[in-house]
């Protein structure tokens, strides 16, 4: 057997070992999953990606003067379930405009403790007709 072949083999074994450790029962490096409010509540304490959007009927609590690291709002998912979100960081720029939020964090009791928020904005990357309509209304003289 060639030396390089032995090396290959060792690498492949290492690769498999790493892949196994990636399976979703590890800790912070294990794969997570996308959840709704209901399923996230079922997996209380487990790190999940909660997909929902801002519930505009409820107030957004953020005051940079009181505490720039505390944001709280209510999110509503596509099934209509709501949950209180707490985010210990500055308020993301386009929270109100986002059509969808992907919140990474854990359910803790009745609230979702969020570590990171990804916003899917109807941005210039997409061709959202409603946004274009709004944009053209703004830009018409």
């Amino acid at each position, binding site marked *: 057997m060639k030396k390089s072949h032995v090396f290959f083999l060792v690498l492949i074994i290492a690769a498999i070992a790493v892949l196994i450790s990636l399976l979703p029962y590890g800790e912070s490096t294990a794969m997570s999953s996308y959840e709704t409010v209901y399923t996230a509540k079922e997996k209380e304490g487990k790190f*999940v990606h909660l997909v929902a959007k801002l519930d505009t009927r409820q107030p957004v609590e953020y005051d940079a003067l009181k*505490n720039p690291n505390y944001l709280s709002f209510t999110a509503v998912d596509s099934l209509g379930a709501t949950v209180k979100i707490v985010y210990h960081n500055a308020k993301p720029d386009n929270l109100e405009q986002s059509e969808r939020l992907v919140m990474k964090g854990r359910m803790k009791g009745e609230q979702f403790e969020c570590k990171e928020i990804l916003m899917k904005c109807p941005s210039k*990357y997409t061709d959202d007709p409603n946004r274009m309509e709004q944009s053209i209304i703004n830009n018409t003289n």
Partner: protein
Amino acid sequence: MEYIGEHLMPGKMGHLLIIISFVTSLFAAGAYLLSFRSGENLAKQLSWKKLARIFFFIDVVAFLAIFIILYSLIANHRYEYFYVYKNSGNDLEPKYIFSSLWSASEGSFILWAVWHAILGMILIFTSKKWEAPVMMVLSLMQACLSTMLLGVYVAGVKIGSNPFVLFREQMPDLPIFTYADYVSKIADGNGLNQLLQNYWMVIHPPVLFLGFASVIVPFAFAIAGLMTKKLGEWTKPALPWTLFSAAILGVGVMMGAAWAYESLSFGGYWAWDPVENASLVPWMVLVAGIHTVVIYKNTGRSLNSSFLLILLSFILIIYSTFLTRSGILGETSVHSFADLGMNAQLYLFLYVFFWLPLFVLVNGIKKKLIVFGISIAFLILANFVHPLFTVIAPLLAIVGFMWQFQMVVPSHKKEEEGSSREFWMFIGSIVLFFSSLFIIGQTSLPVYNKIFGTKYAPAEDVEFSYNRIQIFIAIIIGSLTAVGQYFKYQKTVKKYFLKKIWVPALISLVFSTLIIVWGDINYNKYGIGFLASIWIAVACSIFAVVANFSYIWIGIKGSLKLSGPSVAHFGFGLMLFGILISSSKKEILSYNTSGISINFGPDSKENTGENLTLVKGVRMDMGKYWVTYHSDSIHPKKSQWYYHIKFESKDGKENFTITPDAFVNYQGNEGLMANPDAKHYWNRDVFGYITAMADPERNSDTASFEKNIVKIGDSIFYSRGYIILEDIVTNDNLPAEIFGPNGKLFEAKLKIVATSGSHYTSVPRLAIAKEIALAVPDTIMSESLVFQLNKVEGTTAEIGVKESNSVLQYITLKVYKFPFINVLWLGTIFMAVGFCISMIRRVRLNK
């Protein structure tokens, strides 16, 4: 309806040119193929080649014209065109017209095709006998790119997305199009995405796309090698091109990192975002390919790996195009392109290039038909049976290629010496290749979800899920980079090796020890195991830097001509070192110590508080600095604000201002979009950006003074703490000419205790001058309190307390320290220079 004021001519021209470019590049590919197949018949060969060149020239002119037309439409604000409306606005500076040109998918395809056109011209003049097969592949690719822009419907399926489509064609239902003179009503465009309004976005995409475009050249030479059955000879002309690609693509990727660092506020230059990974991985495979090609040229080994790596690097370029433009990344990436509904087309594009090598390799029309048949069969299976076949088919194509290749070129029977350079180079290439497989494997998670209908998401700690594997790759690659050149091909005598290596090894050992012991690298977030790995990796990177620097004198006696590999490896070592140090010693400086924040009871343990609020004009405590939000200014044309933030170190040694900026309520987007700014020192950057600011609508002051009658020692409560009247000082020894005969000056000494634990003092005054009471209020900015002393009677005072927001103009800031980030940028430059030196040498050798 007859519309008034539209400029339809350029768009029609543009679309026509796209169709022309598609047809001519397809014809060029066909003519080149026929030229190639003419074999020994030189006259026929030449006439087909001439025809092919004419077709290709037309394609070149067409793409240059398309580029110019689109540029002029954007520059002239022709908002009747959807692409122009969507991606630009009146306020764009001239340089950003280019950014908007390539800001969306269509424009970046045009940029890519323009680079192919230019590279194709160079190849026509330089590739000599390789011209026909190489240009055939390039023309085929050019045709594929053109289809991405066609924008035609065939049997109800959209093929390509035309950048010259009119707004009213794209969205015919908008009410504005009921007016015949709608063009004159559109005053402004939608504007360019604020994140792209950054100078890096002017130069990063052209460089990156030149890198993308140039990767096809080694691929085309490899295919040409298969076509001509000169299975090894292609490496000679391909090597300089491969080095060129590696230099440009490497720089392009790092420019993207620099853009992320300077313009995105995720606080760093690399986040293992899928879009970043997708362009890094082809580069890694390409670099691995360079090494195996060099092995082949020196020893005749590793030809099969050279084929595999060079072919895969280009296929991975298309795969990354597929990932970033199909919309499949969805939630996992912050900056991919929009889904243009062309996933099937993108996949087919990828599919063609997966099967092309095997198709070319097999001999005889019968076998070729079998390969073609299998590829079609798998497409049908993928479409009708299970999407799993979309993955099986490309893998099968690669395995089939390797199997067939093995039958043509048997691999070397004799094993390499363990002491030979080629052995260790090969190991390095394999490690690099495996590392890239890990990265692309992890990045492709959304693809598995799509195929299997699962809902897996990236790990909680995405960066660590990559780093914990890549740190070991860094150790292996770092040490191989260091020692590689000290081995000789075939066999290295132990004595020779030790004699040469001991000096650099000793120097590195000393430096590494010094840095590890006194460098204060104590990144213990992931435990001692990971920290130890970082230490080892740092030592390896230092070894790589020192050994390659020394090799210029020890190994090649200062010859500039031969120094390419040493310079490139030296640069790579610097990059590794820069990455390790800047990441493991990155610090958040803006920990909230100001007393502005208040504790949130049960949540307080969670509250790491990485953001600090600065009130305009008030000096705040931020770790080793005092920071002041000094002033602000606005861009003359757009609502882009610049905030001047003064930093003074408490030891008085540093004094500087950084000016992060933010788009505020830009183009109808409420809120802010922040761009960071950094103070660059030779050994570190202090890097800050705005995360929140005062809401201008809240600036009207509706609060009023609340009257409190208190004695000395009494307390007044306010929303975030309480106030103690400590003392009242009465002063009646005052100049009579100002205060009159009975002038008095009262001072109330107040102590404010905020629930955050901070204490303040405030001294509102009350002057009685010429029988008139004059209050001199005092404010505590950070608590937004205003005090007014109204009346004093002995030890009793009437104090007005106002809690206000209007007094405050504030911003919230996040500040990082990145040590030795410049080493990373410097290393990138050295690496690119090293590639270029090697390229020049290889070009000369080929002559």
